[in-house]
């Protein structure tokens, strides 16, 4: 089985999807001759032509809005938003139309489309290139929101997303794009949307994370095991919407403790929903309050502060230790 990093895995999967289905088209800023600013669509233009690999003008609302029209018209568009922090002009299209067209047409029309966007900190990019905007998206009924944390998952999630009958937005953690290679099966396979993944089993506490925070949680788990003998169960949420409540709740019922980790600011972040869900459904099993380890309630800062902003394994360990100490 070949070893791939996440960019390669997504690239090769797009290639397979484009090859097998003529109705799949890709669109976005600089995805053509430039292959995308992260090279995810490298060489696709020469392979599939400008009618299916569409270098769009610079306008995000138009990218998402025209994609919806294409989807209704029988194509399967995959939009790339150059950075998630530039999705905001397109939120109206997502909220008002993409997510509602099925409901509004009593099920007759669907937005069979995918939006992909790199997101999060980690590469010392300029301002507004590192936003974590998932909480705006998880509160849009009708829209699915998924976040891979490994190359293999990135492939399986992308395949499921493109095949899904409903609109799916995939948030791709920039920090994991080239973080290392892992085995990725050659053929097409699917990670069912709506399923979380137990990354590592544990008995004392559940650390619930997604995206680039999954390896951080894993690192914290290793250190906690080694240094304090704490057995951490690491859960990768993976599908924020729909949320796999069952897996999350089962984990917390088992361990009785939970810490949630994300990069986005604390207040109103998706961690609040996870916390609300497990606090409700695992209430009688909880041995201590659930805690959140997140970015602070500030805009993602210029990169000199980036390492302060993004949760580190050390911060996760500190909070896990606190939770373990409560009784």
């Amino acid at each position, binding site marked *: 089985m070949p070893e791939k990093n996440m960019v390669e895995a997504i690239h090769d999967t797009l290639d397979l999807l484009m090859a097998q289905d003529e109705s799949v088209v890709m669109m976005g800023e600089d995805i053509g001759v430039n292959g995308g600013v992260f090279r995810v669509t490298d060489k696709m233009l020469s392979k599939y032509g400008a009618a299916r690999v569409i270098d769009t003008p610079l306008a995000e*609302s138009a990218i998402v809005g025209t994609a919806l029209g294409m989807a209704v018209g029988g194509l399967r568009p995959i939009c790339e938003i150059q950075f998630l922090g530039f999705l905001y002009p397109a939120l109206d299209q997502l909220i008002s139309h993409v997510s509602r067209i099925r409901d509004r047409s009593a099920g007759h029309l669907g937005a069979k489309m995918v939006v992909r966007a790199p997101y999060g900190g980690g590469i010392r990019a300029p301002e507004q290139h590192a936003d974590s905007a998932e909480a705006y998206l998880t509160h849009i009924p009708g829209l699915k929101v998924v976040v891979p944390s490994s190359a293999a998952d990135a492939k399986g999630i992308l395949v499921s997303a493109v095949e899904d009958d409903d609109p799916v937005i995939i948030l791709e953690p920039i920090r994991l794009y080239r973080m290392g290679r892992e085995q990725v099966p050659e053929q097409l396979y699917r990670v069912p949307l709506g399923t979380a993944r137990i990354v590592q089993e544990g008995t004392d506490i559940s650390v619930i994370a997604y995206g680039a925070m999954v390896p951080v949680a894993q690192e914290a788990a290793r250190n906690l095991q080694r240094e304090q003998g704490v057995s951490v169960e690491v859960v990768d949420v993976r599908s924020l919407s729909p949320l796999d409540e069952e897996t999350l709740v089962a984990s917390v019922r088992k361990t009785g403790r939970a810490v949630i980790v994300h990069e986005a600011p604390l207040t109103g972040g998706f961690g609040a929903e996870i916390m609300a869900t497990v606090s409700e459904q695992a209430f009688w099993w909880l041995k201590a309050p659930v805690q959140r380890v997140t970015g602070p309630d500030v805009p993602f800062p210029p990169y000199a502060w980036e390492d302060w902003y993004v949760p580190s394994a050390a911060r996760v360990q500190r909070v896990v230790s606190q939770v373990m100490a409560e009784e």
Partner: protein
Amino acid sequence: MATWPMISVMGGDTSHVSCTDEEALRIYQDMVVLRAFDEKTLTLQRQGRVGTFAPSLGQEAAEIASAHALEPMDWIAPSYRDHGALYVHGLPLDQVILFAMGRSGSYAAGVRALPSSIPIATHLLHAVGLAYALRQRAEPQVAMAYFGDGATSEGDFHEALNFAGVWQVPVIFFCQNNGWAISTAVSHQTHSETLAQKAVAYGIEGIRVDGNDALAVYGVVREARERATEGGGPTLIEAVTYRMGPHTTADDPTRYRPSGELEGHRAQDPLIRLGQYLAGRSILSAEDQERMAADSRDRINEAVARVEAMDPVAVEEMFRHVYQVMPNRLARELRDWGAN
């Protein structure tokens, strides 16, 4: 700078694609239906039998003739005011009434129309995407978006026309300049003299037409359609008309409409104008007109009766179509709601 002359045909200009007498008669008939429908619905609203509703009074030529110029397999992307076009394109009146009753989207299976768009100008992008899909799938059709003068101020208007220009896809932007966006006069909406000239910004065709001249509207839409299907790219059409009624039933135009303005437009009533034209060609008698009006009222009353006889809505319908397959949490919510 070029000026944008207003095209009108009833006056005698024969340089545009013409409408056969049979087609003109069909257009007239549908305009009568739309007028009767709006009058009926306004009454129903006053009686509390339907909710907020946006009539097309005064805009019947623009609304109906434009839709007649399309083919059934063309796509339309309408706004909240375009039930006339939807009706011509195949949407049953029952469905429009259900929409006004807050019971349903303005959609029907098999009709190539998007549900009416309430957020202004957002649907122009959908029309562009539909046109892209048509070309990509080698379907020789067009997509047409309906919108108002106010919509030209929104960013999505701009992005849609710009993408359409770059892509050269078969899309028509049909703007009904009815003089007002709720209480905002078009002169406060933009500093450009016409809306048609906005096409210059995108290097696409811009046409200004007398929107109360059904034959002119028909002609320019047919021409835009031909151009589009032959690869000639998109067209922006400004149909200059006038909103003779309120913005919606929730609106009181006496608060903002200069006195006398409405009266000044009565002579341009598109229904009267087309009626006179057809009478002049001896293909429409006074009796025909009365019969058509009566028939329309009957059909509409029947539709209202059918719709009012329907079962009340069920809570389950609020949940059913949000996703193709209902996620677990939503299914649980539905169970809880049902238990309420």
